[in-house]
C-alpha cells in the first residue's frame, strides 16, 4: 500500500501541539493537586466522619469508579449549566478530572490511613495532641509514603485519561492533534507524534514523582 508518510504538516503546526501539551500538563497537574486535596478530605471523612458523611463519600466514590470518564465529563459540561453552573471547557475538564481522580485517590489514601499503626495515634493522644494535629503531623506523611506508588500510577493514568477531554472542546494535546488532523488530514502522522508526546509526558511525570519521593519521603524505614 503506497501511503507516504509526511510529517511536514505536523511540524508546521508544532506550536499548536506545544500549546495543547502545555494545557494537558496544566490539566493533569491541577487535577492531581486538587484531586489529592479532595481525596484527603473524603478519606478523612470516610475514616473518621459521621455516618451520613461516610455514606456520601461512598456514593461519590462508587459512582465515579463505576462509570466511564467520558460520560462524567459530558454531564459536567452539559448538565451543570441547567442548574446555573457554567464553566469554560478547560475549567470543566479540570473539574471533571479532579472529580474523577479524587474518587480513586480517596480509596488509595484511605488504605494509607488505615495502614498506620494504631499505636502511632495513641502516642499522639497521650502527648495531648488534638485529632487534627494527629492527622496532620503523625498520620499524613507515613500514610502518603505507603501509598505513594499507587497514587502516582493513578496520576499517570489520569494524565492519559485526559486525552478524552477534547469531546467538550477543551484544548488539550489530543484536541490539538485532532484539529491539525482535520485541517491537514495527516491523521497517522499526527497520532504518532501525539502518542510520542504522551509517552514523553508520562516518562517526565514518573521522573518528577521519583524526585518528589526522594525529597519528601527520605526518612529510613526499619527493615
Amino acid at each position: 500500500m503506497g501511503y507516504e508518510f509526511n510529517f511536514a504538516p505536523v511540524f508546521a503546526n508544532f506550536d499548536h501541539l506545544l500549546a495543547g501539551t502545555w494545557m494537558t500538563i496544566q490539566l493533569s497537574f491541577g487535577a492531581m493537586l486538587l484531586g489529592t486535596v479532595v481525596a484527603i478530605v473524603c478519606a478523612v471523612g470516610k475514616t473518621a466522619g459521621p455516618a451520613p458523611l461516610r455514606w456520601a463519600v461512598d456514593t461519590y466514590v462508587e459512582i465515579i469508579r463505576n462509570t466511564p470518564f467520558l460520560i462524567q465529563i459530558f454531564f459536567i459540561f452539559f448538565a451543570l449549566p441547567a442548574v446555573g453552573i457554567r464553566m469554560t471547557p478547560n475549567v470543566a475538564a479540570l473539574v471533571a478530572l479532579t472529580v474523577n481522580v479524587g474518587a480513586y485517590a480517596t480509596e488509595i489514601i484511605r488504605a494509607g490511613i488505615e495502614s498506620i499503626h494504631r499505636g502511632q495515634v495513641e502516642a499522639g493522644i497521650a502527648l495531648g495532641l488534638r485529632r487534627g494535629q494527629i492527622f496532620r503531623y503523625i498520620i499524613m506523611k507515613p500514610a502518603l509514603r505507603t501509598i505513594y506508588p499507587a497514587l502516582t500510577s493513578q496520576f499517570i493514568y489520569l494524565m492519559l485519561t485526559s486525552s478524552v477531554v477534547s469531546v467538550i472542546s477543551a484544548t488539550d494535546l489530543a484536541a490539538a492533534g485532532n484539529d491539525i488532523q482535520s485541517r491537514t488530514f495527516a491523521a497517522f502522522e499526527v497520532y504518532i507524534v501525539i502518542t510520542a508526546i504522551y509517552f514523553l509526558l508520562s516518562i517526565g511525570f514518573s521522573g518528577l514523582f521519583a524526585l518528589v519521593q526522594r525529597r519528601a519521603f527520605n526518612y529510613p524505614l526499619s527493615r
Partner: protein
Amino acid sequence: MIRPFGINEFLFILFAVQWTLALSVVAFTGGAVGGLLIALARVSKVAPLRYAALGFIRLFQGTPLLMQLFLVFFGLNIFGVGINPWLAAAIALTLHASVFLGEIWRGCIQAVPVGQSEASWALGLRYYDRMKSIVLPQAAKIAVAPTVGFLVQLIKGTSLASIIGFVEMTRAGQIINNATFDPFTVFGLVAALYFILCWPLSILARRMERRFAVATRR
C-alpha cells in the same frame, strides 16, 4: 427526523451492551495470556527478558489507549496488513490489558515467599513444574481481587473502541443522542448501564480483598 427517546432507542442502547461485553471478554482473555507471559518475564532470571518486558510495560502504560487503538487499526492497514476492527480491537485491548495484568500478577508472584521457590529448587523441580505446581497456584489466590478490580477498568476502557467503529454502549449513546437530542436521558441511561455492569464487580473485588487481608494478617 428528530424523534423522541422511546423504547426502540432504549433497546438500541441496551443491545449495545453485548458489544461492550464481547470486547471486554476478548480483552480479558487476550490480556490474561499476555499478562501471564509479561509477569513471568518480569520475574525471570534472564535479564534481557526482564528489561524487554519492562520496556513493553512502560510503553503501553505510558500512552493513551485511545491512541493505541487508532494506531493499531489504521496504522496496520496503512502498511498493507489487512485488519478488521475486531482484530484491531483485540490486539490493542489485549496489549493494554496485558501490561496492566502483567504488573498486577508480577506483584502477586513476588508475594509468594521465596522459601517456596527455594524448596522447589532443593527438590529438583524444574521451571515448569515449579511455576505450575507451586508458585502460580499460590499467586493466583492473591491475584483474584486486584484482577477483578482491573476488570472494571477494562470494561470502561472498551468505550474507547468506538473510535474504530464499534457501536458499543458509549457510541450507541452518542448515536441515539444525535437522533433524539436528549442527552440527559441518553447518557444517564448509559451511565446507569455501566454502573450495573461494574458495581457488582467492584463490590466483589473489595470483599475478596478484605477476606484475603484477614486471612493473611494472622
